[in-house]
């Protein structure tokens, strides 16, 4: 681990409590010794009864797991949030402009600001999208930006998730749970609401309906089905915004239009919030062996008869190798400096930088360009000699396949663990909606690495979640 202790969200280095946490601190001190343990048990019962689970792949019923919920909220002051949300909005506007450009005139490539090869030979680049005009020119409508904090004013963007970010249902259910568990805290603090998310999601989806759609567009959420790990979220969101939850088999394309099979026969669908990856949405255009998608869907999309949210091909803008160019991208399209910095990233194809990386691999984080979920990565300070040697070989063999970053001392937040309350590392994923306007839900999902000292917050690797409070002035 890094030599200096990480920035703590609640306490200053001298042990005094930071201003946004004063009320929480007083409340925690009022709780009798057993109270938090009982509350944690209540919270688990609430989540299990509601069925807020994620399925574990390759297993039968009864193996749905709960993502651990931590009952101590993470708190963000109004001032901190203003800064964050401005930076996020700037980023998503620039990235949508970038997507429009790479799938049209490719000015940024012609100007040499982003290497042509990096885009055109990237597996996340979707040639089928060339020249296609999505409704309102928006590609990525639903975005989850991963942010880490290392100091009072030091926030970094770790990743822009522009494809099909998940987890927003946990943001909403964590809030529901906190309202049940500690209502008195909400009376003492003014916490910005998150409950509008489903309504805003619906407005966003309606705002990007094709022009041909009726005044109230028909919206469907397309899910791979109940065995998908995020199925709960798919059904939750469909339910919350009053949209139809569909599987591929429920939809079909006829005459360039998409229909759902209802009890009354076919009914046209205008907007599809698809939670199926690009490759699987249409076996006629993409993977021919996909059973999850809808044959002909892409043709209907191309014809402008249905809107896909998010658009196919958005992965080119959140590719880990493209990520290093986001500050350039912001300057190129908006003429502004990036408000939120990227994590400094080493480019291993550059001999000098590679030499530095190989020499300091024990201090760095190595990520596979196309990896996700915390897999395929090396956290230097927590690694074994064998792992370091393995990654050294891999980087030398394929320098373009890895990005390398310093090990960030992610901020910690007090967390309820077996031994009582102890600091654990956290990150933050705010959720952004881009339609007729940009809507950012105050807060987002705080993920917490429950293992002491661990920096990996992914739920697939033992991470939990916390309710995230943005204080209102």
């Amino acid at each position: 681990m890094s030599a200096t202790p990480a920035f703590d969200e609640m306490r200053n280095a001298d042990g005094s409590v930071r201003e946004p946490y004063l009320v929480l601190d007083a409340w925690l001190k009022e709780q009798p010794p057993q109270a938090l343990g009982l509350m944690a048990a209540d919270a688990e019962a609430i989540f299990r009864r509601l069925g807020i689970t994620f399925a574990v792949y390759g297993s039968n019923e009864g193996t749905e797991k709960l993502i651990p919920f931590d009952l101590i909220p993470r708190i963000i002051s109004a001032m901190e949030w203003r800064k964050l949300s401005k930076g996020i909005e700037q980023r998503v506007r620039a990235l949508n402009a970038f997507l429009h450009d790479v799938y049209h005139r490719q000015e940024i490539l012609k100007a040499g600001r982003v290497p042509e090869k990096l885009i055109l030979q990237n597996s996340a680049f979707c040639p089928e999208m060339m020249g296609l005009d999505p409704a309102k020119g928006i590609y990525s409508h639903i975005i989850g930006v991963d942010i880490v904090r290392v100091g009072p004013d030091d926030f970094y963007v770790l990743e822009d998730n522009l494809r099909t970010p998940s987890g927003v249902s946990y943001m909403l259910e964590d809030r529901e749970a906190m309202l049940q568990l500690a209502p008195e805290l909400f009376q003492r603090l003014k916490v910005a609401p998150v409950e509008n998310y489903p309504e805003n999601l619906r407005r966003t989806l309606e705002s990007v309906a094709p022009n041909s759609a009726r005044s109230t567009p028909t919206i469907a959420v397309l899910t791979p089905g109940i065995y998908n790990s995020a199925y709960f979220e798919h059904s939750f969101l469909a339910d919350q915004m009053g949209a139809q939850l569909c599987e591929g088999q429920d939809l079909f394309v006829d005459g360039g239009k998409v229909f759902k099979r209802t009890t009354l026969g076919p009914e046209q669908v205008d907007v599809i919030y698809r939670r199926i990856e690009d490759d699987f949405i249409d076996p006629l255009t993409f993977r021919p062996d996909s059973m999850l998608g809808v044959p002909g869907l892409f043709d209907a999309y191309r014809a402008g008869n249905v809107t896909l949210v998010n658009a196919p091909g958005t992965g080119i803008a959140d590719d880990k190798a493209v990520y290093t160019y986001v500050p350039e991208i912001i300057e190129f399209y908006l003429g502004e400096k990036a408000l939120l910095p990227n994590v400094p990233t080493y480019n291993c194809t550059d001999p000098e930088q590679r030499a530095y990386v190989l020499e300091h691999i024990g201090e760095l984080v190595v990520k596979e360009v196309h990896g996700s979920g915390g897999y395929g990565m090396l956290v230097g300070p927590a690694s074994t000699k064998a792992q370091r040697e393995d990654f050294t070989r891999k980087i030398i063999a394929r320098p373009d396949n890895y990005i390398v970053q310093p090990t960030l001392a992610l901020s910690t937040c007090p967390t309820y663990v077996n031994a009582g309350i102890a600091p654990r590392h956290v990150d933050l994923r705010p959720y952004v909606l881009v339609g007729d306007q940009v809507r950012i839900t105050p807060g987002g999902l705080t993920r917490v690495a429950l293992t002491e000292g661990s920096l990996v917050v992914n739920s697939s690797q033992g991470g939990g979640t916390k309710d995230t409070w943005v204080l209102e002035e």
Partner: protein
Amino acid sequence: MLGRTAQNLFWLSRYIERAENMARLFEVGYRMSLTSRREGGASEHLVSMMQAAEIYDEFQLAHERADVTSVSHFMLFDEKNPSSVRSCLLAARTNARTERTALTSDMWESLNAAWLEFAAINPKSVTGAKLPELLQWVKQLSHQFRGALLGTILRDDGFAFSQAGSFIERADNTARILDMKYYVLLPRSNLIGGDVDIQQWTLILRAASAHRSYRHVYHDRYKAWNIADYLMLRPEMPRSLIFCARFLDQTLASLDAIYGKTGESRAAAAALLAMLESNDMDRIFAYGLHEFLTEFIARNNRVTETLSETYNFY
């Protein structure tokens, strides 16, 4: 509504009703086996119950003797028996999980909680006094789910499909209970039943939760004729064939009203109801009780078939 959603709601309710019926059937067989004096513990009553539920062939594949232990495991916990309480609850919950957006949160939570509780039971621990307790619990969970449904669901097409599922399943169950023991219900010269007859009649009435309400309706001791009449033609008896058929007919009429069209399923429900409304017990006995029940079950199945054709189940 998606055709698949309609189908899932229909079967969700059928599975819950079936779980309840299985618990009730087993309860009767279990009670009777306690009082009947058979050597070796095997029980013909348990066999009759399984025959009524059409699961006896399946049972015989894996078991030699029908005693309380083997039958309770088979009817309550066996994953290989598609009609076991466990299989019904799991299927109902899977349907519910698939259709969460069509269910109210009260319905989902009651079903989800019930499944989690049931799945946590160790079948081996359910012995002695725990067995009747569990059967009671299964019935309670069905009542609870029905209560959540009736108290919270919108009275729309989804409601109609789920009600249709319940009442088709219930009618099927009552018809099978009657058919299982139809021969003890036939009119005979000796109008006063012997001990064995009374035992059999009690069994039939209990299986339909009708042994106490019978007295309120007939103010008389158990008689074969009355029992058949009660479970077939009495409109106030909520598990009687005529009650189920009328309810089904009204439900499908409401579905037609919602959709503004006349489905073939309505005609099938009307044909089912006509069998009961145009008959009395004299005519039914003259036609043949067993033959009548066989025809009823077939017409009841026809309603399911037409529903899936008319409303695009797939």
